[in-house]
């Protein structure tokens, strides 16, 4: 009954908290799995209707301890290698409350999770998934903190999106320099960061977002660097079809794409939650989930949440935003690396990529809702993954 609880209790107050990861569950299935682990194998899982009754009442709190290993220590021959220890803190946003109607309630939950991280003494906190979207332009809404710094983690997310796009182009034999890149959600932190990193590499950039003023400002910035840019608040307004697409804002329906992208376009789903999937209407599109990285130095959870908190077809994969906090913790660089909106530059992305790579955190194998999209190596990794 209380074995796992007791085991964690023993660690509760003793462990130094290098980092905290603030996240939430994307689906009721995921929420049910989390509660099932907490209940333990001796008890039957809670019925779905009970989960929906109980879950929204849970105050933000740690769910498990996380330990991440670096390859840096082992290369240097240090005993046991460099490790960083932290907490995964769930804000317990109900999976069906991710919409705009619940914005204030969700910000309050993220604030609660942030307060929990501060109280736990976390040195650096990554805001995962929807948490960073909620807070990225509102850092002043985070609680008062003393020795805790916060990062949205968006710089490493951008890094992995850009790496993924380039890798997918290479896998598909496309010359990225001849591509027309469409970014949906272009003025957000992630979207604008991708535009700055990839704009100089492609033939033309199509920027789509809801706010025309922000679009114009971003376009002017890119044009000053010699990037050919077109902007629109609706996809139907663009004069050309895109063959590479980054969706940095989740769309309600993939049908919005129809007619506005090339049939065999490369599509990076960088939104949250990831809801694009190959279907009959987009059969030719090469869709992959972007912004994900893999820890090669090992990642452990206590209690064991492997495959539950990181629901990916490959081992030790996590969102770039969370990995940024872990990489900085391994580097012992407790600084608010990514803050605010619109400050992600190519230089900053390269800097965090270098830090991550030093500790063995790399782009994850590419996959989508149907499974791995890379043949050969990807399948081997998936088959051997724990």
């Amino acid at each position, binding site marked *: *009954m*209380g074995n*796992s*609880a*007791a085991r*964690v*209790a023993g660690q*509760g*107050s003793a462990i130094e908290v290098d980092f905290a990861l603030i996240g939430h569950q994307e689906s009721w299935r995921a929420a049910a799995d989390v*509660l099932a682990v*907490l*209940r*333990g194998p001796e*008890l039957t899982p*809670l*019925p779905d209707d*009970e989960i929906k*009754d*109980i879950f*929204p*009442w*849970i*105050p933000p*709190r*740690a*769910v*498990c*301890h996380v330990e991440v290993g670096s390859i840096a220590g082992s290369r240097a021959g240090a005993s046991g290698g460099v490790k960083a220890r932290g*907490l995964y803190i769930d804000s317990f946003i109900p999976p069906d409350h991710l919409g705009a109607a619940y914005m204030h309630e969700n910000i309050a939950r993220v604030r609660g999770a942030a307060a*929990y991280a501060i109280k736990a003494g976390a040195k650096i906190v990554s805001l995962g998934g929807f948490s960073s979207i909620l807070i990225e332009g509102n850092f002043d809404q985070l609680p008062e903190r003393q020795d805790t710094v916060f990062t949205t983690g968006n710089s490493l997310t951008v890094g992995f999106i850009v790496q993924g796009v380039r890798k997918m182009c290479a896998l598909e034999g496309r010359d990225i320099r001849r591509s027309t890149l469409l970014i949906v959600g272009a003025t957000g932190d992630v979207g604008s960061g991708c535009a700055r990193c990839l704009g100089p590499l492609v033939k033309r950039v199509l920027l789509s977002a809801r706010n025309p003023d922000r679009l114009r400002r971003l376009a002017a910035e890119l044009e000053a660097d010699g990037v050919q840019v077109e902007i629109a608040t609706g996809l139907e307004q663009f004069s050309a079809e895109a063959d590479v697409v980054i969706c940095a804002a989740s769309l309600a329906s993939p049908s919005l794409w129809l007619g506005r992208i090339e049939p065999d376009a490369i599509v990076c789903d960088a939104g949250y939650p990831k809801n694009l999937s190959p279907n009959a209407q987009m059969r030719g599109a090469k869709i992959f989930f972007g912004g994900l990285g893999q820890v090669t130095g090992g990642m452990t959870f206590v*209690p064991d949440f492997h495959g539950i908190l990181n629901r990916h077809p490959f081992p030790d994969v996590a969102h770039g935003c969370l990995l940024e906090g872990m990489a900085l913790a391994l580097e012992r660089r407790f600084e608010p690396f990514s803050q605010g909106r619109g400050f992600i530059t190519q230089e900053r992305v390269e800097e965090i990529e270098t830090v991550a790579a030093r500790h063995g955190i790399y782009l994850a194998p590419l996959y989508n809702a149907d499974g791995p999209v890379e043949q050969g190596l990807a399948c081997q990794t998936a088959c051997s993954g724990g």
Partner: protein
Amino acid sequence: MEPVLGAGCSTTIECTSLSPSAMIWQDVLAQAMTGELIAAMNYTSLSEICNDPEEVADALEHAEGEHGHAAAFAAEGRKIGVDVPNNVGAKHWKRLREAFLRCIAERDFIGCLIVQEIMLESFAVASYARVGRVAPGSLGTTFASIATEEEGHIEHAMEILRTERARDTQSFDDKVHRLHFDVMTTLAEMLARECVHGHCEVCHGSCVKPSLFEVSLSAAELRGASLQQYLKSLDMLGLPGEVTLAWVTQLPV
């Protein structure tokens, strides 16, 4: 068991002319009143194991306060035309009282505070506050103001308990864990959507839970709010949140 409070407090009232929700409020009040009387009995028992005269006085003052709350609930019943029964011997309440008495038998002052102030009061504060939001007129005001008073109790105890935890964290947490399964299991059964183990022996007819929606309440909401308050109280004591979360998820539904 005979009602502890009731005789002389109210007269039996003809229910045929009552508002449709009066019978629901009657059951809600009956549960609240029984809880207050259990609390009064617990504080009285607590006074018997206190060594410090100030602590004795404090416990007796609390007992008196809880009696006052019970009387206030009885009065609210009369205002809406219902007699508010109570049954401190009802199966769930009896088990809760017995859990408290085990701490008394061990002269475990800290255990008593944990049961009464952290577990039972969390339940009272959260559920009274929810009822206070939706109950009409003075009924709502009474529930809300008693919720606020009970919250004061928790804050008072918190200081003592935090000091105790700082003295020996592991022993303290082990004790909370032990009492959690003893007391919170019973509370969770009381707060379950349906009384699967039969009648609670407090509701005057069939179980009130399925009818709560008629007064803009639900058993799920009362349970959720109570467990939330309980987790927050444990957080304030400093217990690790990942541990207490596991405890709560292991409770019966």
